[in-house]
């Protein structure tokens, strides 16, 4: 059998494994065996990955048996280069999640329904895979809905928690709005092009601007772009850690896939969409990281950082669109390369960070920085991998995050040189400066995350009793870390390898800049050991241990360690108008100034977008609803009167039109 058929067989086998995994988890009810199910999931993802790698770059087409969906809809799953790229990311994260889940779930024992969790997980991964393989609107929407609903079910895994319920509700509302906009756009496009295939949507001209804008808005909501990003910190925080990893690493990329497929591959790019995508992207990048650096909950910090990275990705999509619209092909190539590479990078280091946060949650039973600390002593492997992930996400050379950031900078630089209008050039330079600021802010956020969790002294008893997670969980994080390292070593090759993906967007793909990664890595690999030897050998002296310097006051309590709010206080003051933090303090005691009995300090934030945009909108909706309730009197006679009055009104209208 030739390799191509074998790969298609792999793809079908993996889909079959996903379906059977879902059925087994539902069937086993209370007696779910987490190991068996995670093996199924791992095998399915692995087979899919092999199938994708084998079929690169020709693609595959899989026709599923009618019995798969009860013969309702004839589904053809087509995987072309773009689909296989995203499928590769999905399968990588899926494998890590499959390895991590059984160990992690042991700490949720008794508070969740394992059958529901595993069923929803299989449905989630399966529907995301099929969204990536969808080439027409109907398949896309069907599996998009399946993905949204199963992820809501996963967010509420810990069903007793009030915060989780609140988060799931907000998330559900956001997906409903997103799906409505998507459906509206798709139906309008269908009316314009008389078919449901994406290829026909792309062939439409400028009359498709408004429906395309609707679709784009729906995808922006699902991606978590400002100002629709509100649901992301809620949902990604309250979901269990492997699910947050999947959602941050892959689900927001599904929206990006939709944007590339529908907006970027359209034959007539529109400037309005390009500039609005760029504006929304850069604003969400700034907004996300600004809030991340002042957070005091580990997973919320990571969620806001996802908002930032998605903003960067949406920015690159807008940038590519701008390049396409103004005809400068070098910019388009660089922008697409940056977008795809950033999608790949974020899909590897963000799940790594979330799994690390899950390990912390498992070991110390808290996500709050004021209860963590000093975990490096008890969880050295997790600390190492989390440090690695933080370095990658801060775009520090020589890791993979730097490669995609570098491409974005280079693209903006080429834009500043080759554009013809002063406005565009000024825009390019300003955004470069803004991106430098965003990079520095992400450094602030992630040094805070790593430093306050893993370094220093444990701030609570539970942090002191933490221990390392079992090997399977560590292997999951290790898998992602190895992927990061491979990507950083082979970044230049990967960028050249994007050529088949861009076939639908550009006539010729040519990235004119070259990443200097190898020399950097080699130089560092030589220098680091050299200095280490200098440190331990030269002088041949001893190392004595003593307590940290404390001005001679004696051993300081663990609470004297810096807290999350103090670490970012200056930054919060700097952005005070947007962050709006409030401190409430009250001191009790007979002689309050000198001998306080009780000091009560509360530090909270008022979220500007939530309070001033969504708050009034929801209040208005509520008021309208309450006004409408008065119409519903509960008396049958009044309701009959409504019916008859409408009837008479219609008769009168009929008479008018007759005349």
């Amino acid at each position, binding site marked *: 059998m030739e390799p191509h058929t074998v790969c298609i067989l792999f793809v079908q086998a993996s889909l079959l494994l996903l379906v059977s995994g879902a059925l087994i988890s539902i069937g086993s009810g209370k007696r779910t065996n987490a190991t068996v199910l995670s093996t199924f999931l791992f095998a399915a993802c692995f087979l899919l990955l092999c199938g994708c790698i084998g079929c690169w770059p020709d693609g595959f087409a899989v026709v599923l048996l009618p019995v798969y969906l009860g013969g309702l809809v004839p589904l053809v799953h087509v995987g072309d280069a773009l689909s296989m790229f995203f499928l590769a990311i999905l399968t990588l994260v899926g494998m890590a999640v499959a390895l991590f889940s059984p160990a992690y779930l042991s700490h949720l024992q008794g508070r969740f329904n394992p059958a529901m969790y595993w069923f929803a997980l299989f449905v989630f991964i399966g529907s995301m895979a099929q969204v990536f393989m969808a080439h027409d609107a109907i398949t896309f929407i069907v599996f998009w809905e399946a993905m949204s609903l199963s992820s809501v079910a996963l967010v509420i895994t810990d069903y007793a928690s009030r915060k989780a319920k609140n988060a799931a509700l907000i998330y559900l509302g956001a997906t409903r709005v997103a799906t409505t906009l998507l459906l509206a756009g798709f139906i309008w496009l269908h009316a314009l092009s008389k078919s449901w295939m994406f290829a026909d949507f792309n062939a439409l001209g400028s009359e498709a601007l408004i429906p395309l804008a609707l679709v784009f808005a729906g995808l922006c909501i699902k991606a978590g772009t400002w100002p629709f990003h509100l649901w992301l910190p809620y949902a990604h925080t309250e979901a269990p850690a492997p699910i947050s990893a999947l959602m941050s690493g892959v689900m927001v990329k599904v929206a990006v896939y939709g944007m590339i497929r529908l907006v970027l591959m359209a034959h007539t790019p529109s400037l309005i969409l390009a500039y609005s995508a760029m504006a929304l992207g850069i604003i969400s990048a700034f907004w996300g990281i600004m809030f991340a650096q002042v957070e005091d909950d580990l997973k919320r910090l990571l969620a806001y950082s996802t908002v930032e990275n998605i903003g960067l990705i949406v920015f690159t999509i807008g940038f590519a669109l701008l390049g396409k619209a103004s005809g400068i092909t070098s910019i388009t190539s660089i922008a697409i390369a940056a977008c795809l590479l950033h999608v790949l990078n974020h899909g590897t280091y963000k799940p790594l960070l979330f799994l690390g946060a899950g390990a912390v949650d498992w070991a110390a039973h808290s996500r709050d920085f004021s209860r963590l600390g000093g975990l490096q002593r008890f969880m050295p492997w997790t600390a190492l991998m989390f440090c690695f992930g933080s370095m990658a996400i801060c775009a520090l050379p020589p890791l993979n995050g730097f490669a995609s950031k570098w491409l974005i900078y280079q693209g903006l630089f080429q834009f500043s040189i080759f554009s013809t209008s002063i406005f565009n050039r000024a825009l390019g330079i300003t955004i470069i400066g803004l991106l430098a600021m965003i990079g520095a802010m992400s450094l602030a956020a992630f040094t805070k995350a790593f430093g306050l969790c893993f370094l220093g002294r444990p701030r609570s008893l539970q942090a002191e009793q933490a221990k390392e997670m079992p090997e399977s969980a560590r292997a999951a994080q290790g898998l992602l870390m190895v992927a990061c390292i491979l990507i950083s070593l082979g970044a230049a090759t990967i960028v050249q390898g994007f050529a088949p993906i861009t076939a639908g967007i550009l006539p010729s793909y040519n990235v004119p800049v070259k990443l200097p990664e190898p020399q950097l890595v080699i130089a560092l690999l030589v220098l680091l050991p050299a200095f280490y030897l200098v440190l331990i050998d030269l002088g041949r002296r001893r190392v004595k241990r003593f307590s940290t310097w404390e001005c001679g006051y004696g051993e300081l309590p663990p609470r004297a360690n810096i807290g999350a709010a103090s670490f970012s206080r200056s930054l919060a003051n700097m952005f005070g108008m947007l962050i709006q933090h409030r401190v409430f303090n009250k001191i009790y005691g007979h002689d309050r100034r000198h001998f306080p009995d009780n000091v009560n300090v509360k530090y909270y934030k008022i979220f500007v977008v939530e309070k001033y945009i969504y708050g009034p909108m929801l209040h208005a909706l509520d008021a309208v609803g309450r006004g409408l309730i008065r119409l519903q*009197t*509960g008396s*049958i*006679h009044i309701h009959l009167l409504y019916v008859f009055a409408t009837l008479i009104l219609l008769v009168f209208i009929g008479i008018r039109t007759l005349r």
Partner: protein
Amino acid sequence: MKLTNLELVFVGVALTAIMMLGTTNIRTNLSLYRWHTMLIAVSSGWIGYLRAEPVFHWLGIALMIAGAKAWFAPWFLSQIMRKVEVQNDSAVFIPTALAMHIGIALLALSYPLAQTLPSVLNQPGGSIGATVALSLISTGMLLMVTRHIAVSQVMGFLVIENGIYLISLTQTRGMPLNIEMGVLLDLLVAVMVTGLLLFRIKKNFEHIDVAKLNELRD
């Protein structure tokens, strides 16, 4: 205006319906309804004869209306009323005299309204038939909206049904037999089901006053 005999029958139909508005005694209402439907049966047979339809058709329709709507439905309802032991609809939203006056005003209003309807052919009794039909619909609506107990709702529904039947009779060239039979069957079943339900409502709630349902609202 000069009214033909057929049109006089139609006017009789409208007047009996309006007289139903004027009394709250259930038995009187039911007997008025019987006369009202009998007149409709007669008029439908008459029109069928005037249009030279096959004998079987118009005679059959007239007999079925007479049997099902004029005899069976009121009889069934009166049996139910006997079991439920309700004689009077003691509560109404507006006084019965006023209701009757409003009914007559609506009849007057229906006349110009009916003139605007496109009469399909120069039908025998075309425009008067439409007037009466519209007034029957309004009368039925008035019955449903102003009376409290459930039986009145059923009767109002039956009167509206008659009005719709009249429109189909006078404004069209005639409905196929199947449709007319189907409609009659629907009506019969609806009346039987409602009657049985009334019985159960009385057993459960000790009354059949529909207006008290708004206690369920929160």
